[in-house]
């Protein structure tokens, strides 16, 4: 059982790497870092033990990809939540709420509503006719080779975008939280994840996701109860939000001149109203479309429905997932606003401008502050859960990408299904190592890049390519190979191309113009402030001016840095001086285009097989005939 020994070794390496004293300062003070490692060590220990047990049960490709279809509805519901609640939603949404109030909470809604699409039209039919991958569904009645190729490419594209965001975001997050070097944290996440997936396949991945989801929900419930005990439940809580001086100051800061004639209560009330963050409604709607239709096309989520034995279990798992995910987002409202009161937006933004530290700092503050054992234990716990979150999500993504590579491209297209069961498992493991190594390499290569929009892009591609193809092949008789190939290509390319020419990219010319403005204005401004400083009547006034002065000097240095960085650059990655497409989220254009392409491609192409197989597919997706048989072995 050398594979099990390897699993343990991977865990040991990961632990050793985390414990290496190559540490800088993070949110966790150096004095308390051992506590974080202790909590994290326990989590790694438990999950590695699960992997050790799981490794014994992985014999076939079905075991590796789908845990042999032996996951229950309840287990799968928790695993879906663990797969879906990435660090971005766990830490990011709490941060958005703590900094921007109502708009942050509104943002979370789409992430739950997305599961209605999954529940109503995707989960059960996919369970009834699918096997291991998204392309299995496309290949059912269409030309298997052609659809497997386009399906696998799209799956690998979506997973790679998502994976890059997780690896880079995770590396930064762990550095901010614990102070571990970026590269080390990327390697640790990669090695751990490889340990789970390679040896334990879907069984271990499922359990890692379940354990992570349980930890996440437990931590949130504990924190929210502590918040409630201090600030009151619903009505009292919101009254406290309105009356809180930190929140009032934050709203005044956001509104700037607009806040001049507002009373403190009005400022606090404004925090509970829309419009502080989102100024471009069309962009919000476009993002909403990508979420609501894209989740149903995310390969790592779709794959989870092949792990349950029946359509009923698939249904049950979505219901559980919706209860857990929705409940979690409702709790996030209190976590976010709680940390806005307890910690304050200024302090949260000082450590991380995106707000990712809202929940961790709230935990520390609730436990008694930066010098208390309980406070640091709670911070350590949240930090460890964040790390586990990244590992669990990455594991699911790698498994999805590896299955597309091994099952669709290698077994399906190259070997044309002529493979022994042993070869299938071997191919799956080799693909896992390739994707895992790729994830680590991309993570290190993309250090310092802004990857925040890559998650939204992954959803956009899933919504514009995968979703129309899966939906129409399941429900539309006329759909055929021509439509799937055209839809996949047009959907993927449009979504990516629109982002490449959108404001998400870096436009040196505009940046330099703005920086030049700062540089030009700075000398006069600094001179005036220096004069003010000398003329300040008392220490308080002096300190205030000094603060502005330091800020102005900082701005100047930053602006000079920008000018230096883009010296000689005039255009963005694709040669544009300014964005050609004004929206950050391409969904509103690319999703309809994706659907249109599937329809047009299908109408223009003749495909007898797609037509002949329709009755079979339609009968099976609706009734589940033969579905039980598919999991019997």
């Amino acid at each position: 059982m050398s594979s099990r020994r390897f699993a343990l070794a991977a865990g040991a390496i990961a632990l050793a790497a985390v414990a290496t004293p190559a540490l800088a300062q993070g949110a966790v003070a150096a004095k308390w870092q051992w506590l974080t490692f202790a909590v994290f060590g326990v989590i790694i220990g438990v999950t590695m033990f699960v992997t050790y047990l799981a490794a014994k049960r992985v014999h076939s490709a079905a075991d590796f990809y789908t845990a042999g279809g032996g996951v229950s509805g309840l287990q799968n519901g928790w695993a879906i939540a663990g797969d879906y609640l990435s660090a971005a939603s766990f830490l990011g949404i709490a941060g958005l709420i703590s900094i921007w109030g109502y708009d942050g909470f509104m943002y979370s809604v789409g992430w739950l509503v997305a599961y209605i699409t999954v529940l109503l039209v995707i989960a059960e039919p996919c369970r009834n006719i699918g096997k291991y991958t998204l392309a299995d569904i496309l290949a059912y009645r269409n030309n298997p080779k052609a659809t497997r190729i386009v399906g696998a490419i799209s799956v690998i594209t979506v997973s790679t975008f998502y994976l890059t965001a997780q690896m880079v975001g995770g590396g930064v997050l762990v550095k901010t939280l614990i102070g571990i070097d970026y590269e080390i944290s990327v390697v640790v996440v990669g090695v751990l994840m490889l340990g789970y997936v390679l040896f334990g396949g879907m069984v271990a991945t499922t359990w890692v996701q379940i354990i992570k989801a349980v930890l996440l929900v437990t931590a949130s419930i504990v924190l929210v109860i502590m918040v409630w005990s201090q600030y009151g439940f619903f009505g009292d809580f919101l009254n406290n939000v309105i009356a809180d001086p930190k929140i009032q100051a934050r709203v005044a800061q956001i509104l700037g001149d607009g806040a001049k004639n507002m009373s403190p209560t009005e400022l606090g009330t404004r925090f509970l109203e829309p419009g502080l963050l989102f100024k471009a409604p069309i962009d919000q709607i476009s993002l909403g479309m990508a979420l609501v239709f894209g989740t149903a096309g995310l390969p790592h989520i779709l794959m989870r429905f092949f792990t349950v034995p029946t359509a009923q279990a698939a249904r049950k798992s979505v219901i559980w997932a919706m209860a857990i995910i929705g409940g979690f987002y409702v709790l996030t409202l209190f976590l976010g606003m709680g940390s806005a009161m307890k910690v304050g937006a200024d302090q949260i933004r000082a450590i991380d401008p995106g707000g990712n530290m809202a929940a961790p700092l709230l935990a520390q503050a609730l436990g008694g502050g930066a010098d208390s054992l309980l406070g640091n234990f709670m911070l350590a716990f949240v930090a460890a859960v964040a790390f586990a979150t990244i590992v669990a999500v990455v594991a699911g993504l790698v498994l999805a990408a590896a299955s597309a590579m091994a099952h669709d491209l290698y077994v399906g297209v190259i070997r044309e299904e002529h493979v022994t069961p042993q070869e299938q498992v071997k191919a799956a493991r080799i693909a896992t190592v390739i994707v895992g190594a790729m994830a680590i390499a991309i993570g290190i290569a993309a250090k310092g890049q802004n990857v925040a929009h890559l998650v939204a892009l992954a959803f956009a591609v899933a919504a514009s390519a995968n979703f129309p193809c899966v939906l129409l092949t399941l429900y539309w008789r006329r759909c055929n190979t021509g439509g799937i190939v055209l839809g996949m290509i047009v959907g993927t390319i449009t979504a990516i191309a629109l982002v490449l020419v959108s404001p998400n990219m870096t436009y040196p010319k505009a940046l330099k113009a703005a920086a030049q403005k700062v540089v030009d204005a700075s000398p006069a401004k600094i001179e005036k402030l220096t004069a003010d400083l000398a003329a300040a009547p008392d220490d308080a006034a002096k300190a205030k001016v000094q603060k502005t002065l330091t800020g102005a000097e900082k701005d100047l240095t930053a602006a000079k840095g920008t000018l230096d960085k883009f010296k000689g650059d005039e255009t963005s990655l694709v040669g544009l001086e300014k964005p050609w497409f004004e929206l950050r989220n391409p969904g509103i254009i690319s999703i309809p285009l994706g659907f249109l392409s599937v329809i047009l491609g299908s109408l223009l192409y003749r495909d007898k097989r797609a037509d002949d197989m329709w009755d079979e597919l339609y009968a099976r997706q609706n009734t589940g005939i033969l579905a039980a048989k598919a999991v019997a072995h």
Partner: protein
Amino acid sequence: MADTTQYDWKAIVADQRFHALHRKKMAFLWGLMVFSVVYYFLLPIGAAYFQDLFKIKVFGPVNVGILFALSEFVVAWGIAFYYAYKANAEFDTAAAEIVMDVEKKYGGRK
């Protein structure tokens, strides 16, 4: 993949009961789907274009916007439970009958 050619899928799909199941299910699913999508997009649309409405206080500190955002959760869960109830009670039974017939005809599970 299991050998599926021995089944007469045309006959199964042409069966009156399959037809009835499919018709009922499609109307129900797509009705719910359209409702949920429309209800969801009312939130960002309302927050952007009907801010004055969203700012109206209903009781205490609670305004229309907060209630509406919370209602999104309740509605999503409501749809999920309603669908599960309907599927468990009606669709599953109808589908099970069809599956049983098919299995009887083709020698049951292998």
